[in-house]
């Protein structure tokens, strides 16, 4: 018997989409452990998100304090660890976002808990399947510590649906808040009206062959036509053509949209690791020997300069007939 404590990120009074994937994993883990899901909301403004969160779990614990306005692993991890104990959790979970990846191992150390990172599946009560070697193999690990920390991979778990009735909301105090001297300075956010790369149903990604940042404009036009998020290979982000947070791959975002366009991307294993879970992959590359064609469902062997504008025109034509 043990509960599952699900640390959930929120924004503007509601859970983030990434947190809903966490809850899908949390529900299967709660079933395996014979307990219930407890949502933990930490941060200034957590109270405002509690009513929305309560639709997804029988219990919500809120730790809201003005000193927690900006996320810091130093202040959040002790709260997560304390609440794990207070709620009788045997599994503590957070989506493998940049916050989850930063926070959860620190909390695991405080709990002396074994941790399974970036998992794709719960295999048995304490067994987890996770990709290793840039997604070229899957490892099943068993963890025997009394509390287990987990970060599920967003793209592997569907967003959870609301429950029939709202759960109970409780508040907890943060305790001593000690940032260990760490300070949040600022966040330079990439402003975009496009969907988040992690949530998008369609992704349009460009690689080294796009040559420069200006050339990505045609891909952005394609993306906006399809309501897609923009992505890129490491070669393109390293070359400064596009923002770093567009990077799809082993060390960037892991995505699994319905439709993924890989334009002028050769298909290095590190890139494939980030997108080969996509349902349908389209590759556009002038070189028919590139490895991207081995994972693509549909390949177009053409220069992007010719293919992409034609693709945009054809899709517009199709849309006009609907």
């Amino acid at each position, binding site marked *: 018997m043990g509960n599952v404590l699900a640390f959930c990120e929120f924004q503007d009074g509601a859970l983030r989409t990434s947190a809903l994937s966490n809850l899908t994993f949390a529900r299967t883990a709660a079933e395996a452990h014979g307990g219930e899901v407890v949502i933990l909301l930490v941060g200034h403004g957590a109270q405002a998100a509690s009513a929305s969160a309560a639709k997804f779990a029988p219990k919500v614990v809120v730790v809201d304090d003005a000193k927690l306005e900006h996320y810091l692993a*130093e202040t959040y991890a002790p709260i997560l660890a304390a609440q794990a104990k207070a709620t009788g959790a045997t599994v503590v979970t957070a989506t493998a*976002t*940049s916050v989850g990846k*930063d*926070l*959860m*191992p*620190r909390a*695991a*150390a405080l709990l*002396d808990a*074994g*941790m399974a*990172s*970036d998992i794709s599946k719960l295999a048995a009560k304490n067994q987890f399947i996770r*990709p*290793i*070697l*840039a997604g*070229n*193999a*899957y*490892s*099943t*690990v068993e*963890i*025997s*510590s009394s509390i287990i920390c987990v970060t599920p991979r967003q793209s592997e778990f569907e967003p959870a649906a609301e429950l029939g009735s709202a759960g109970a909301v409780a508040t907890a105090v943060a305790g001593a808040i000690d*940032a*260990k*001297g*760490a300070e*949040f*300075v*600022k*966040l*330079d956010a990439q402003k975009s009206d496009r969907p*988040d790369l*992690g949530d998008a149903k*369609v992704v349009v990604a460009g690689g080294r062959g796009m040559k420069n940042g200006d050339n990505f404009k045609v891909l952005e036009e394609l993306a906006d036509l399809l309501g897609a998020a923009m992505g890129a290979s490491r070669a393109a982000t*390293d070359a400064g053509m596009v923002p770093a*947070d567009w990077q799809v791959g*082993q*060390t960037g975002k892991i995505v699994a949209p*319905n*439709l993924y366009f890989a334009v002028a991307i050769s298909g290095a*294993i590190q890139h494939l690791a980030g997108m*080969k879970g996509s349902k*349908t*992959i*389209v590759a556009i590359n002038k070189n028919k020997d590139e490895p991207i*064609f081995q*994972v693509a*469902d*549909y*390949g177009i062997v053409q220069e992007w300069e010719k*293919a992409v504008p*034609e693709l945009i025109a*054809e899709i517009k034509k*199709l849309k006009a007939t609907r």
Partner: protein
Amino acid sequence: MKILVPVKRVPDPTQKAKIKDGHIDPTGASWIVNTFDEYAVETALRLLENGDSNTRIAGSEIVVVTIGPEDAAKELRTTLAMGADRAIHVVAKDDELDSLAVVKILAGIVAAEKPDAVILGKQAVDGDANQVGQMLAGKLGWPQATFAAAIELKDGRFIVHREVDGGVETKSVPVPAILTVDLRIISSHSVQNGVTSATFAYGGEGARLPSLKGIMAAKKKPMVTAKLADYGVEPQPVIKEISVTLPPPRAGGQIVADIPTLVKKLAEEAKVI
């Protein structure tokens, strides 16, 4: 300033993984220093040198440590050849270890060495777990700045640009701290230490390669060996690998003749637009 850099050897990721008896078969693998750890060594060097004159700051020290089998001394020696000053090799079999054991050992080394910073790669490219830096920070009660794309050392603090979902976060942490580095830390101007001029551009697309002089010097640099028991660690990991499988290969796709055909197939066959 003294910086501790833990490094791990990993099988060359460009080689195809083989499975034997349900686990990765490392026979015949060539081993390399984990790329992100190599970047961590490079970061430590850039923090503790004058890039303009290619000389180390007086009194600075870089200690590298690895935890792994006897063979792993070779990759540790590579980091000495890059410019680290001395090495600690904790000899252990890979299946005796998990991240908690590694962190316990590193915490013991930190207690003995008292570094001003521990710099690590953000993850090892074999296990892709991305745990050790954060766990060590938690265990020590030190501040952490993970996934660093740029670091500025100023007035006893590290000002770190972190690549996060949706942008770049700037976080400032005092010494001593744990830093983990991301890919772009090796860009030309990513590390600013206030000694090397701000306009100085590091070249190349990766960490520095050991020079011939560096390789010769590394042979004489001290490397001490230790064992798990020295840090009170029992070879009983709580995280155990049950099995490893290779994913089924993706069914082969088709080359489509032209764009109109592609759009037709996407609409009618795949039904995704």
